[in-house]
């Protein structure tokens, strides 16, 4: 069985193996809202973080902690960073995945020319391999410096499928979506105005299967560009909906919005275990979006 080249004069920063490529494809596709996007990748002994940004107003991060991998050998000093095309990475990873199988992939960095190296490792007489060019990142990722809004967090957790549906439904009214949190009665409102208007309310006590958690001690309301909010839910993978997961939204100081999703990276396991809705935490990838508000609502 063929493996690495015969001569390897340098140590690799990272050699890791993942036993379910499709999970990684799902997690990365979650932050792909355009066909071609540049991403920044940071490697550390804790795992891999991939960051994508748009026009200084929207940032997404994918956390793939080391426990997701079946092997994670970290040999770098410090934290190497490189730029890579997200679209290309997702399309390449997707070729390693075949339907109905769990495919094991080995990821190495850096290659002889600083490439990211991918290779399938679970098949005897065939293999898939890929070398993707990386670039030196010009700037560091924008640190969105998310801070709590006041003395207590303003946050709610809503069923991911309901969130996606609500945002999809609000597509036609206009280009700004208003998100309001009301302390009493506890309620989250999504409102779009423009070509007509549409409002979707999640009442905490009425919809306990949709609104799973709610913390709010003062009423707030902020507007966000629709296209950025859409980007936070447009590519939620199917398994998030199937597993009934919740997405957590937090409004920070100045109206900065944080949206968090959980994406399962586990192998497909026995149906009875899946339906219990429980996944060991180490088999979950964390996705975070930060959205800057439009001018503050006068309320």
């Amino acid at each position, binding site marked *: 069985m063929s493996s690495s080249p*015969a001569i390897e004069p340098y140590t690799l920063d990272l050699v890791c193996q993942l036993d379910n490529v499709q999970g990684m494809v799902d997690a990365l596709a979650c932050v792909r809202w355009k066909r071609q996007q540049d991403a920044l990748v940071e490697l550390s002994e804790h795992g891999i973080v991939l960051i994508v940004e748009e026009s200084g107003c929207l940032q997404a991060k994918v956390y793939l902690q080391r426990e997701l991998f079946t092997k994670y050998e970290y040999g770098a000093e410090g934290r190497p960073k490189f730029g890579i095309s997200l679209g290309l990475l997702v399309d390449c990873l997707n070729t390693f995945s075949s339907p109905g199988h769990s495919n094991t992939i080995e990821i190495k960095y850096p290659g002889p020319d600083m490439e990211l190296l991918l290779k399938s490792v679970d098949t005897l007489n065939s293999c898939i391999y890929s070398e*993707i060019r990386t670039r030196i990142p010009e700037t560091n990722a924008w640190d969105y410096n998310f801070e709590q809004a006041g003395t207590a967090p303003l946050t709610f957790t809503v069923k991911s499928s309901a969130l996606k549906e609500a945002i999809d439904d609000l597509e036609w009214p206009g280009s700004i979506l208003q998100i309001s949190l009301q302390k009493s009665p506890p309620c989250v409102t999504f409102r779009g105005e423009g070509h007509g208007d549409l409002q979707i309310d999640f009442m905490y006590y009425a919809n306990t299967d949709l609104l799973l958690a709610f913390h709010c001690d003062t009423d707030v309301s902020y507007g966000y560009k629709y296209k950025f909010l859409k980007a936070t839910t447009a590519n939620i993978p199917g398994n998030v909906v199937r597993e009934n997961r919740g997405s957590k939204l937090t409004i920070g100081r100045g109206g900065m919005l944080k949206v968090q999703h959980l994406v399962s990276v586990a192998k497909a396991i026995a149906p009875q275990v899946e339906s219990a809705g429980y996944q060991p935490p180490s088999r979950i990838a964390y996705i975070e979006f930060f959205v800057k508000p439009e001018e503050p609502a006068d309320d």
Partner: protein
Amino acid sequence: MKFKAFLTENGVNLLEKRFLPAFDKLGKTCFLFLTKEHLFFLHNLLNGDGVQCIAQFRKDALFDDYHVSSQNEDRIAFSLDVSLLHRAVKSSVSICTEFSAGLASNSNRLQIKLVKKLPPNCTQPMPFLTFETKGYKSAVIQDVPISRPLSRSQVIELQTALDSAQDLPPTLVQVQDPNQLQNFVDRMRHVGDVLNVTISKHGDLQVQISTALVRLGSEFRRLSVIGEKSPAPVEDRNLTAQARSERAVARGDAMSVQVSVKHFSKSLHCHLTKPDSAFYGIAPQGSCLTVIFQFMVPGTRQTDKSISLHCRLPVLDPGSN
């Protein structure tokens, strides 16, 4: 010029469920070439551009009472729209089934023949391939429009092209699981347009896309080889796929050509014909990439010689050798 035959149940199954769906994906039109013993479906044989596909059926694989006659050594050729033919066969089948419910199974048969008819609003009679199903009390006739049958010189041109397309590459490797290859190429399409294909006498097949930003490939090793073969050198065993194929090409044990990903994907539609395996080879001087599909007699390990299907993909570059 005359052509008349009855499609057997086996013939209908082969065409309706397997071959016509594949031909539909390979190209809008194709030639139908009838000879005394065989029927051919020919895609892109006379224009150099796309994927050439040659399907050959022995007359008894499809028909009973097959009669063909013409002044050109009993050969007839014409072109038609594959989707119209597919539709006609499909609806003839459903009519046949309706008619035969409750009746003796051979009381109606699907007859196919070449006719000239005067369509409405036309002054000239036009040629058609007609499907006729005669039931107990009624008959259903479907006409598939076809081109004017090819002239003698055009038929010779077609026959010559057909003969030269039958050359076998010196080395062929057998891919047992075409679905794996298809799944890979279908996903690879998003990454690039040009595919490098390397085939070695050791039984290695490598397909790779290489652009400025990425190299993505798949290697299949230890495939069965037909034709010129040689054992893989031990020292190459632990190299990367890329290094292994480069060394094999340098030694003269492998050939490499570039084809369009679109063409390769298109040729994979031939899997709809449900072949038992596929053989890949590169023609001498790297003039084209050949894929030959093998069909076994059902329930046996014998090749069914009454059906043959192969594709030839144009090569983008002379390739390295």
